[in-house]
Structures are given as structure tokens and as C-alpha cells.
């Protein structure tokens, strides 16, 4: 059986901006890995095929060793198409059986189990047409599978996910190096320190309220305190961090200061002091020293977030911090309001006041206004430099993908720039 992960519903994608601007939805992280990893672990396919938005196909193809946007991969085997926002632990659809299309109450495809022979009859030019045809020609069933609906759903469920995945992984013990004195609170059965990890002296690992998983070659510097549930990714470094409960970090991040209930994608830095709470941070982000976000309003009311710069969405939670897109950099002393949205590839220069709650992608926020700054060429140069430093390559395919994102996000950015210009002209 071939698992087909498809990401072709624009409205759904937009609910995970800015994180989904540069990656398909199944690459979003929660717990100890990606949404895709959890679906694969649950479904156990023989093979996988990916269908991503066209603008990111070349960049994604370079990251994976499976077919991407290849319609020919839809023939020759039984298929299980799964909407990537389905919660893997709730996916109990038998992989064997007659063809059927699972639809939610809005008639959105949640899954599609398609036999090899039926797949052959659904010949189409693209995945959208294939799904539409499957919906029209094959039996439809209504299903109610739980889904991730917004990025903050991932943040708020992260601790529970880590706990569940730690149990599923079935690992514990200390395979890395611990330089005494290291204090372990709670049960040692709730701690796993992978091979190649270095835990320096004067570190506290507190597993009393949840498990702690420190993945391979991570390094924990002195005076770090790690509270479970927590996952620290391969090669990440904690620099005297106060790593509160519910964090997923890594791989190859540098984390200092205080971090609580946050998810950080790979290669991002929060090297210095400053608080990050209930936030979701993309790849290649750098948060300057003393960058601090609010994750709780003074009146304890629900936090709202604007994903498009115009419409505030009630998160339903009193605790949500910031959503920060890939490659975004904040200056020292940046203050982020509760429920802030920082787009991808943005440059933020602090003003001493909390930022506006919505900063578009590719914005240069300078002197309190959104500007065009030095343009995207300079942002790409910075991205290349940051990636070179970690022995990673900035490729033409990545640049083409970000060019497309630049165009896609132009309307809200231009609007913010115009607003800033009005301030300047006054």
C-alpha cells in the first residue's frame, strides 16, 4: 500500500501560515517529530508519495527521496491518501478494504482508500483533479477524525504528544555522557539521553511531571534546567537554558534563556536570555538577545491571532505566544505581543515597545514601521550565510520557492508598507 500525503487545500494551508509558507503541512513538527513521521508510524505504508503546492515542489524534491508531485506514482499499487492534518493517533481506518472516500462535515477529503484497479480508472492531470474524480466516482463516507486546525493546536498539545511518543519509543536510560554533578528529578525511567549526548555538570533534568528525551549529539551546558515533557533534537545545544515543560526543540538549534511550551524547528537560534512561551518558531530563525514574547494577556482573556493581517482569530486559549516564520531575525530587545505573527524572511529591529501583532513576510520592520528595507536579495544573502555556517546549502530551488512566497505575500506586505509610509510622510 502506498501512502499519499497531499497538501492541496489553500484555505487549510493558510491556517498554518507562516510556517506552511515554506513547507508542506506534514513537515510541521509536534512532539518528537513531524506530522508525517507520526502518520507513517501509524499506517506503515510500503511506500510514500508526496503532493505539494507547485511552487515548493522543486525545493521539497531535493529534501526527500520519494516521488513529489508525480502523478505516475498513483498507479500500480493500492493507495491511502491522507489529509496531513489528521491526528495520527486517531487514524484507525483499515488500510485494506474496498475503495472509499472519507469526508468531513464540510465534504473535505480526510482520507481516500483507493484500490489499485480503481486508481487506474482515475487518470488525471493533477492531484486536485484526481481527488475530485475519486470523490465523484467512489463511495463516500462521512467521518469524524480529529484534525489539527491551526498552528496553536500543535503548540497546545505538544506536551501530551511528547509524553505519548516517549512511551511509544520505549527508550530510557543514559547512553550519552553525563558529567557529574547532574541532578535527575523524578523517575530515571522517564529520561532518555541518546548516544553522543554531552550533559555538562550542574544540569538538572526534571522528569517529575513528564519525560525528557535528549536526542543524539545534543549538548546541555551548565546551569540548564530541563523540565519534562521535553524533546531536544539531534545536535541541539542548550546554553544554560531554563527549559520549562512542553518544549520540542531541534535539530541543531542553539537555545538559551527561558523557553516554555514551544515548538522550534531545526537550525534556529535563541542563544541568549529572553522568554519564549507557547510559540511556534520556524527554521533558520534567529531571536536576538532579550527577545521576549508575551503568551498571556493581563486580563487572562483568550488570545487572538491575525494570520492575514486583517482578521483576528480567537485561539480559544488564554495562552498563546508567537508564530515566527522561517529565516526571520529579531534584533536585541525585541518585544512580541501576545498572539504575534512574524512572517517568514522578516527582519525585526526593536523599538522598545511591543511590536504590532502582524508583521508580513519579507518585511523589514525598522523604526516602528514596515518597510521594504534592503529588499529580498539581501535577505537571501543572509539566509545563504546562515546556512553556509551550518554546512547547509541555499539552492536555486529554495530561492525560486521563496520568490513565489514573496509574490504570494506581496498584498499584505504592500499594505503594511503603505501604512508605514503614511507615518513617515506625516
Amino acid at each position, binding site marked *: 500500500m502506498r501512502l499519499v500525503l497531499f497538501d492541496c487545500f489553500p484555505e487549510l494551508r493558510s491556517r498554518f501560515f507562516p510556517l506552511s509558507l515554506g513547507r508542506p503541512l506534514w513537515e510541521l513538527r509536534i512532539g518528537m517529530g513531524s506530522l508525517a513521521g507520526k502518520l507513517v508510524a501509524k499506517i506503515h505504508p510500503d511506500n510514500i508519495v508526496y503532493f505539494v503546492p507547485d511552487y515548493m515542489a522543486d525545493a521539497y524534491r531535493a529534501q526527500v527521496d520519494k516521488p513529489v508531485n508525480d502523478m505516475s506514482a498513483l498507479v500500480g499499487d493500492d493507495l491511502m491518501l491522507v489529509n496531513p492534518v489528521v491526528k495520527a493517533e486517531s487514524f484507525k481506518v483499515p488500510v485494506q478494504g474496498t475503495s472509499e472516500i472519507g469526508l468531513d462535515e464540510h465534504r473535505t477529503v480526510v482520507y481516500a482508500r483507493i484500490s489499485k484497479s480503481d486508481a487506474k480508472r482515475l487518470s488525471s492531470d493533477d492531484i486536485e483533479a484526481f481527488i475530485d474524480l475519486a470523490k465523484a466516482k467512489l463511495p463516500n463516507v462521512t467521518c469524524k477524525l480529529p484534525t489539527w486546525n491551526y498552528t496553536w493546536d500543535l503548540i497546545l498539545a505538544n506536551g501530551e504528544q511528547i509524553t505519548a511518543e516517549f512511551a511509544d519509543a520505549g527508550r530510557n536510560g543514559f547512553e550519552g555522557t553525563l558529567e557529574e554533578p547532574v541532578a535527575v528529578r523524578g523517575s530515571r525511567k522517564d529520561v532518555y539521553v541518546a548516544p553522543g549526548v554531552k550533559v555538562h555538570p550542574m544540569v538538572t533534568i526534571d522528569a517529575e511531571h513528564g519525560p525528557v528525551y535528549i536526542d543524539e549529539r545534543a549538548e546541555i551546558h551548565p546551569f540548564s534546567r530541563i523540565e519534562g515533557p521535553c524533546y531536544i533534537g539531534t545536535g541541539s545545544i542548550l546554553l544554560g537554558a531554563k527549559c520549562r515543560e512542553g518544549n520540542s526543540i531541534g535539530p541543531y538549534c542553539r537555545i538559551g534563556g527561558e523557553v516554555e511550551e514551544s515548538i522550534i524547528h531545526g537550525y534556529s537560534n535563541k542563544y541568549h536570555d529572553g522568554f519564549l512561551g507557547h510559540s511556534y518558531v520556524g527554521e533558520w530563525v534567529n531571536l536576538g538577545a532579550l527577545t521576549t514574547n508575551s503568551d498571556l494577556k493581563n486580563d487572562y482573556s483568550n488570545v487572538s491571532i491575525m494570520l492575514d493581517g486583517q482578521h483576528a482569530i480567537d485561539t480559544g486559549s488564554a495562552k498563546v505566544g508567537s508564530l515566527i516564520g522561517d529565516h526571520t531575525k529579531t534584533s536585541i530587545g525585541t518585544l512580541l505581543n501576545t498572539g504575534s505573527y512574524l512572517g517568514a524572511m522578516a527582519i525585526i529591529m526593536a523599538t522598545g515597545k511591543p511590536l504590532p501583532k502582524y508583521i508580513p513576510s519579507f518585511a523589514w520592520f525598522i523604526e516602528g514601521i514596515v518597510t521594504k528595507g534592503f*529588499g529580498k*536579495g539581501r535577505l537571501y544573502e543572509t539566509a545563504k550565510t546562515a546556512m553556509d555556517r551550518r554546512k547547509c546549502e541555499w539552492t536555486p530551488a529554495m530561492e525560486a520557492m521563496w520568490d513565489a512566497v514573496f509574490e504570494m505575500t506581496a498584498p499584505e506586505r504592500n499594505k503594511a508598507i503603505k501604512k508605514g509610509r503614511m507615518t513617515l*510622510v506625516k
Partner: protein
Amino acid sequence: MATVEERVKAVTANVLKLNADEIKLEDSFTADLGAESVQSIELVAMFEEEFSIEMDEDAALSVQTVGEAVEFITDVCKKQGVDVEE
């Protein structure tokens, strides 16, 4: 209508808090007029507003002197069909 040169000098004076009469065409924005990088961005923004044009950031920010800015903006105005007094 004021010339491009006069308008460039007026905008420059306004952004950098200088006297327009003391700005010369050969003045470098950074070395002579003291523009910091943030002010360079502000200058580009204000030139765009003044002339109702769109400038490529990389090209605009590579302009070094007031005279080069006059030439560059005149050229952009022509390309974008904006009437100016040369």
C-alpha cells in the same frame, strides 16, 4: 514644477535634517551627509513617495551620491511614465 534635483535635495534634507541649499550633487549620502543604513531605507521610501515611483531596492541602495540619485530617479520616472522637470 521643481526639478528632479531640487526635489531630491529637498527630500534628502528632510530625512537627514539638513539644509537643502548646502547639499551638493557630488555629496555622498553616507560619507558626506551622514546617512545611516536605516536612513538610507527611509530615503528610498521617501523618494518613492515624492515621485510616485517604485524602485528596485538593491539598485536604489547602490546609489552613492546625490547626483547619482538624481540620474537614477530621472531614469526610473521615464521608465514608469512619470513626468518630471529635468
